[in-house]
């Protein structure tokens, strides 16, 4: 484990990861009983977003994508208000005007979320530019999927960040590793001619690394370097975090095809459903992290079970809050247009 992190921080990250998992599972379950519209879940990518965003300070900003739920929870946004937003309720983070695609919480460093592929990249660069110009010791993180590299916006954005040496971190969550192109009724994967995504970055003279996104320690290490580079004015960094796409995120509409995650899978192989042995046994970054912490003696099984119980209760309450919340008043449709 990272020597610089105290046990409480390690356990705190574990708690956040479990909370994200339970949030997304609760949402998928809710979608089975009622129409919540189209959405995307962060299951299987918690080990990237949580340690990466844990390194940010208040005032740093992050720009996310359509797959944003995990990022917001990682920085402390209230899941109940997120769930309410996803259901279009007045109590939602965006008062029902953003929905799952645009969840934003300015006070937590998510000024706005774009669901346009590649859309947030130039904007994140702009925040980096503002920080540099305002003399603020802040960092702007841009989170995006591998598909964004197919957009010209990406190229324009990283070029400007590089030539102006801005405090921007490009964190690419590549969940298309095992696939190229789309299979029937599944999400597309990136179609890029480059051998490695990082190859596309090198001409800009921006440091670029590719890491295992399910390895909390690796994410923490590379993100730490990137944040330090940015804060000392040394310019942008590009990190590609590889993740295996969770089976439930392959269909266009997320499904709990693996069933709920049982944290006991981390220590009891026999409980793992045979159809998903590879996923729960080796790929799932959340369970890998539980095993690491158990092996390092940072937590006990009882701790994990207790954290999980709290997370489940919290998300059940979040769903209730969202369901019980009122819809916005009709006339609110015309509000928030102009300051």
């Amino acid at each position, binding site marked *: 484990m990272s020597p610089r992190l105290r046990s409480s921080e390690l356990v705190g990250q574990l708690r956040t990861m479990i909370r994200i998992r339970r949030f997304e599972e609760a949402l998928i379950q809710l979608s089975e009983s009622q129409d919540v519209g189209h959405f995307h879940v962060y299951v299987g990518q918690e080990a990237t977003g949580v340690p990466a965003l844990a390194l940010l300070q208040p005032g740093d*900003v992050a*720009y996310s994508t359509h797959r944003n739920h995990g990022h917001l929870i990682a920085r402390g946004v209230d899941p109940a208000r997120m769930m309410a937003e996803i259901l279009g309720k007045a109590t*939602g*983070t*965006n*008062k*029902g*005007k*953003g929905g799952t695609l*645009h969840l*934003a*919480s*300015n*006070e937590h460093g998510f*000024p*706005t*979320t*774009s669901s*346009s592929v590649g*859309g947030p*990249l*130039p*904007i*994140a*660069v*702009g*925040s*980096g*530019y*503002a*920080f540099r*110009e*305002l003399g*603020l010791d*802040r960092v*702007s993180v841009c989170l995006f999927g591998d598909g964004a590299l197919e957009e*010209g*916006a990406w*190229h*324009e*954005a990283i*070029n*400007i960040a590089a*030539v*102006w040496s801005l405090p921007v971190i490009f964190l690419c969550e590549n969940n298309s590793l095992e696939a190229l192109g789309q299979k029937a009724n599944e999400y597309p994967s990136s179609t890029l001619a480059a051998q490695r995504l990082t190859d596309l970055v090198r001409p800009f003279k921006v440091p670029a690394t590719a890491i295992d996104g399910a390895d909390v320690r690796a994410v923490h290490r590379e993100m730490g370097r990137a944040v330090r580079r940015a804060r000392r004015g040394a310019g942008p960094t590009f990190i590609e975090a590889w993740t295996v796409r969770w089976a439930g995120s392959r269909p266009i509409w997320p499904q709990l095809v693996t069933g709920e995650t049982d944290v006991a899978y981390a220590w009891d192989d026999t409980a793992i459903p045979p159809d998903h042995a590879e996923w729960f046994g080796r790929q799932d970054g959340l369970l890998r992290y539980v095993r690491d912490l158990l092996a390092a003696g940072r937590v006990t099984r009882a701790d994990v079970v207790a954290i999980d119980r709290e997370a489940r209760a919290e998300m059940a309450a979040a769903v209730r809050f969202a369901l019980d919340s009122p819809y916005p008043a009709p006339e609110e449709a015309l*509000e*928030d*247009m*102009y*300051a």
Partner: protein
Amino acid sequence: MTATSPPAESAARQMSYAEALVLGLRRALESDDRVRLMGQYFVGLTEHRQLVADLRDDFPQRVWYPPISEIGYVGAGIGAAISGLRPIVDIATASFIFQAFSQVVNEAANVRYMTGGQTSVPAIFHVNHGIRGGGAAQHSHSPQAMIWNTPGLQIMLPSTPRDVYGLLRTALESEDPVFWADHVKLFDVTGPVMAQDWEAIPFGVADIKRAGVDVTIVATSYMVQRSLAAAELMAADGVSVEVIDPRTLVPLDLDAILASVHRTGRLVVVDECHRSCGVGSEISALVAEYAFDALKCPIRRVTALDVPIPFSPALEAFVEPSEAKICAAVRAAMGSV
């Protein structure tokens, strides 16, 4: 004031539109540390370019020349605004805004609303619009009508040195994104400016550029100048034309327009956008609906014709709304009573 009067304390100074514009930018840089200029073509490639170069010499750290990456640097302007700067982003020739359209209309325009009011984008996007002389189909656009169909942006279309100077202050102080278009042919227009002060001209307040009783002309940007010239010609024929300049389309001072139409009973809308779904269409439709009973004759639109702007000077002159076309429309309005 005359053009020859020397600058004096708290007196209006005669200056060109380009000078007033750049003076406004200078005041913006002086008055607010958060202001950054991103771009170098605020006055296009005209002879006034040196004024912008001088600004950069005076504020070398705050005037940035970005690469030819419209989607990249316009987006960067949005992010910079979100994070505390007041960027004035120059997209140069208005036709290039299409390279950055997703950022302007999908991102900047929507952020406040999508976030339920949490996040502001106090950015200004500047373009040089209009038929400039030989610009042909890719350097002559007036995209304001399309922008008008996009809720979330404010639209500022100055027509005089005084207006560009004063409106810029309001734009700068606004918490919301502003689309600001200058017509390339305005840069040489001269007029009085209270240069010592920097008084804001509010958005949403139309300006009666010339009072009259027979016909109302509503025009924006350079078409105000053309309309004033036409009004002068018509006065010689004994027709009294009122020229109303809304100055901003969002917000729009519809009341001022309706009040004038109630006085004159006749309306000519002059607009350099293409005719179909242009600015003139919306103004005509609004007046046709809300001043239906006051109209003594059909509303006439004088617009650019619905073709890509042709290169040849002969064709270009035929396409654009000219003084002669405006006069013809005014005469037709008078004749059809």
